[in-house]
């Protein structure tokens, strides 16, 4: 119902623009004149006609037919229109930069019509002919707002700092927008992470995830309790309708089922959180890695001495536990050609450069040499003992030493064997690289690791299964890869190389992973 209404509205708008107050009757005839379809034009996207005919709604390729009748659109003056709604953290700087980069790459000039920080429209114009190609309307609010607009049929693309939730997924299905959980409905535009911040002159440098949850629950109220001065803690946070705040709720507050304290001061943007914290030495805030501002990032401390500082590399590998990929969702309906080209552009190297340029973490795959992993191997030695013996470590080092770790990594949803969102995206990413021949003649090792729960031998088996499962998923996605192009092997070392402590569920989740190493 809603999808139909949206299409009808779009058609009405088109007609309103091109042929005011006229009926929409069209007859589409094949080039050889043998087949023709008559009906009411529902939409035209510059490429395809959608016609309500006696056979129902039909979509016809514009290049194969000629259009006759008063409802025919003016092909010359067609301008693609689509809208982007949702998260401010993505819509403020990241997406505008990507749109401008896309236009530049496509030989188009842009003009940005600005009403305010939340409402603006990009007009893309072909530089050669000065012809308008597309109008992209931005309506920026937050992730909740973006999905709400999509459910109302008002959004073609939704910017989200969290995955779509089950209520939204159900509503979308009901509204005829398709199964939003399907891979084709979303893509990761850039990577980011949740980070706790304090003022530069606050002496505290680390906080454990548990303590962070207790601070935001109001259970820890003095800096003294986490190694600071005897002073009250003032908490700043993003507003509850932002995807990042909801992610914090799940990933941090959910650890011990804490509720957020009422005394927290909420802000609409991450920049406001960072600024408020930077000015007050007794404040703590939750912001994103890409918006630390003038505040100081805290390192997350695990109970057994392992620490996680957010970094570009840590967010790519998800070794940093609070990584938050930034998503762009599209409902299942045909988008104008320019919109589809924009989506394809988002995966390009040029788009990754733009992502980096504006301070977000891109998805380019880089290599981490063994020399840069000293801390990890030190942790492994420290954790070795009865279950992981010296021989096991030596065997692991022997296998990994001639290779380098890729920033592509695979992790699983909590308490599940399904890959998390970033890892699902990584399956596609790695498959594309393999298809493109980036690793031709090399060997990629899928190296499985587990948490330390249970017996070491069992863990090795589990990690071997995971490595094989990930390899199979990548092979399946790399449809055009020839069998001998790249050797894809698997290895498994169980609990031998822990990244986090196994005494918490999140720690165990960090440890359960499949790394990719290149030889």
């Amino acid at each position, binding site marked *: 119902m809603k999808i139909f209404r949206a299409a009808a509205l779009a058609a009405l708008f088109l007609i309103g623009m091109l042929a005011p107050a006229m009926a929409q009757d069209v007859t589409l005839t094949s080039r050889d004149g043998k087949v023709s379809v008559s009906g009411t034009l529902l939409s035209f996207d510059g490429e395809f006609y959608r016609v309500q005919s006696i056979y129902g709604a039909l979509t016809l390729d514009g290049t194969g037919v000629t259009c006759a009748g008063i409802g025919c659109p003016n092909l010359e003056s067609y301008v693609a229109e689509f809208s982007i709604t949702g998260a401010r953290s993505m819509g*403020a700087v990241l997406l505008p930069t990507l749109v401008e980069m896309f236009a530049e790459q496509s030989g188009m000039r842009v003009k940005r019509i*600005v009403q305010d*920080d939340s409402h603006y429209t990009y007009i893309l114009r072909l530089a050669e002919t000065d012809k308008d190609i597309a109008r992209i309307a931005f309506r920026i609010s937050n992730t909740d707002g973006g999905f709400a607009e999509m459910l109302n049929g008002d959004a073609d693309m939704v910017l989200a700092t969290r995955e779509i939730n089950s209520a939204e997924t159900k509503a979308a299905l009901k509204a005829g927008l398709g199964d939003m959980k399907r891979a084709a409905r979303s893509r990761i535009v850039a990577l980011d992470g949740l980070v706790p911040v304090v003022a530069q002159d606050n002496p505290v440098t680390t906080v454990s995830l548990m303590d962070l949850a207790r601070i935001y629950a109001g259970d820890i109220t003095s800096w003294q309790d986490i190694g600071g001065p005897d002073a009250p803690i003032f908490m700043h946070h993003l507003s509850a309708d932002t995807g990042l705040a909801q992610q914090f709720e799940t990933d941090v507050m959910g650890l011990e089922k804490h509720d957020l304290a009422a005394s927290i001061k909420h802000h609409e943007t991450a*920049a406001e959180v960072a600024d408020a914290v*930077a000015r007050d030495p007794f404040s703590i805030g939750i912001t994103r890695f890409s918006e630390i*501002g*003038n505040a100081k990032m805290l390192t997350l401390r695990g109970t057994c001495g392992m620490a996680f500082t957010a970094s570009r590399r840590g967010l790519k590998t998800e070794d940093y536990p609070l990584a938050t990929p930034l998503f762009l969702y599209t409902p299942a309906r045909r988008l104008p050609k320019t919109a589809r080209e924009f989506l394809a552009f988002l995966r390009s190297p040029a788009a990754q450069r733009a992502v980096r*340029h504006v301070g977000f973490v891109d998805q380019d795959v880089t290599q981490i040499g063994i020399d840069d992993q000293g801390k990890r191997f030190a942790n492994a030695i420290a954790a070795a003992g009865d279950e992981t013996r010296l021989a096991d470590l030596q065997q692991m080092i022997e296998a990994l030493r001639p290779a380098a770790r890729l920033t592509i990594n695979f992790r699983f949803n909590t308490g599940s064997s399904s890959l998390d969102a970033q890892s699902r995206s990584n399956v596609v990413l790695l498959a594309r690289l393999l298809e493109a021949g980036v690793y031709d003649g090399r060997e990629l090792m899928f190296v499985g690791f587990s948490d330390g729960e249970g017996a070491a031998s069992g863990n090795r088996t589990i990690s071997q299964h995971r490595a094989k499962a990930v390899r199979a998923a990548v092979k399946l996605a790399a449809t055009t890869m020839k069998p001998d192009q790249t050797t894809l092997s698997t290895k498994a070392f169980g609990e031998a190389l822990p990244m986090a402590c196994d005494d918490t569920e999140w720690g165990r989740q960090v440890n359960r992973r499949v790394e990719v190493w290149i030889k």
Partner: protein
Amino acid sequence: MLFKKNYKTAAATFVVVLTTGFVMQNGDAFASRFATAVPQAQPKPDALVTTAENLASETVMPTTLADQTGLADRVNSTEKNYTAPNIVADQDFSALGLACDVTLDATKTAGAMVTLEFKAPCYVNEMVTVNHQGLRFTSVTSEVGHVTVQMPAMAATASFDVTLIDGSTVSATVNVPEVSNYDRVAVQWVGDSGLRIHALELGADYGERGHVWAKSPQSVAAVLQARGGYITSLGDIDFPGAKHTEIYTFPSGLVQKSGVVRLSVEAEVTAKTCNKEIEAQALQSGVDGMISVSDLILSMPPCDAIGDFLVLNNLLRDLKIAQN
């Protein structure tokens, strides 16, 4: 109006220069100019007659020159209904007898600034447009046809050009490798829409030290001492089509701090701008490291908001300063 005033000024200057012996130094040039210029240019009678009388009464004019040109006869024959030319000089020499050559010199100064010296002796009190890597603003030549302006370099190989009202252009290039120590952003507009950059440096709040904008612009001295940034406002005439630009400079490579400079653009809602669309441009570092220019149209709020400011936080990206 503007041109009429120009003309009188030029004529007066003409006399002064003649009486100071300029002719003696540039005798040949002056003679050849004078021989052809008067009959062709046919200046406005009342102005030039006065000039000619002055010439005659002070007998500065070399006799040889007077003999060659028959000045008095020629002046007396000028037409009454002559209208003043836009350009006071003929094709080759100004009213001062200076060669009409248009020149532009760009010299690097401290703080990755550049001093531009534009000389067009035959274009007096004329609007010119200065262009530099996407920056553009309107200036007016002085009474001797000069424009001198101090402006920030936006690229290591900084090319400048100045375009005259007749479309002719001169260019100059200067190497300013120090540019890499500075972050520079700009907004520019046409007419009196009055956009303002506000910079909040490394945690400063509005009204505090470190809040840099047109009313608290600081200067290049601030960056030389690595204290903070400054605003440069260019485009110096109040004329409907005049182009203005406002540049903010921060010495990112010189300060010993890290953090963020928050940048916003404010546009006042005035009786002239309310409910209108203002065309503007934003300049900031592009993905390739060069300055990129974005075309903007600001839809100003309705007129019941006069006196308010449209505050835009996302037109210019904040500057992230990482200590080396």
